[in-house]
């Protein structure tokens, strides 16, 4: 079963852009679903706190469909790569756990205040 995931990579900001692109391509090759990957480059960004000696990081967000069996190998490749400062893989399925609130529920919750006044 394929599920939708979202991955955030923080690369060492001293790396060249070409090197970062090459690393991303290498990671994504392990997912075996090259057509369904969308990649969003945030670029170099100030980190909220220092990670080791680093003050800035190169942020990349990728969304992809994959089966869970390919993830351990993919994660291992990132873990072993020195250029990746941090990464986070999350399920990009908002319906996991409780179903999302319907418009009706939202409206009811937003109206709550008015109802309380009437009590």
């Amino acid at each position: 079963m394929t599920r939708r995931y979202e991955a955030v990579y923080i690369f060492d900001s001293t790396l060249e852009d070409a090197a970062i692109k090459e690393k991303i391509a290498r990671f994504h090759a392990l997912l075996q679903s090259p057509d369904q990957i969308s990649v969003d480059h945030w670029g170099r960004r100030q980190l909220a706190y220092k990670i080791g000696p680093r003050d800035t990081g190169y942020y990349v967000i990728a969304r992809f469909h994959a089966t869970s069996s390919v993830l351990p190998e993919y994660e291992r490749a990132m873990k072993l790569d020195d250029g990746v400062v941090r990464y986070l893989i999350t399920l990009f399925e908002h319906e996991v756990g409780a179903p999302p609130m319907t418009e009706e529920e939202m409206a009811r919750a937003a109206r709550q205040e008015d109802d309380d006044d009437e009590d």
Partner: protein
Amino acid sequence: MRRPQKSCPFCEGRVHYVDYKDDRTLGRFITDHGKILPSRLSGVCARHQRQLSTAIKRARYLAIIPYIRGHLA
């Protein structure tokens, strides 16, 4: 006397999912020191508060928002 209930800012904005990458929104729900603001103060409903606390913890890990602010080492 019962406190008048505040309305949830996420419900009012019709937000279905609290995004951990949105530092400007998350920044509204943390204190000056970086702690998660209790729903009693912010008025966030239970469902969105659960999503919010997960989102803040993910954002902290990714160095999007700090774990501690205003702390001099």
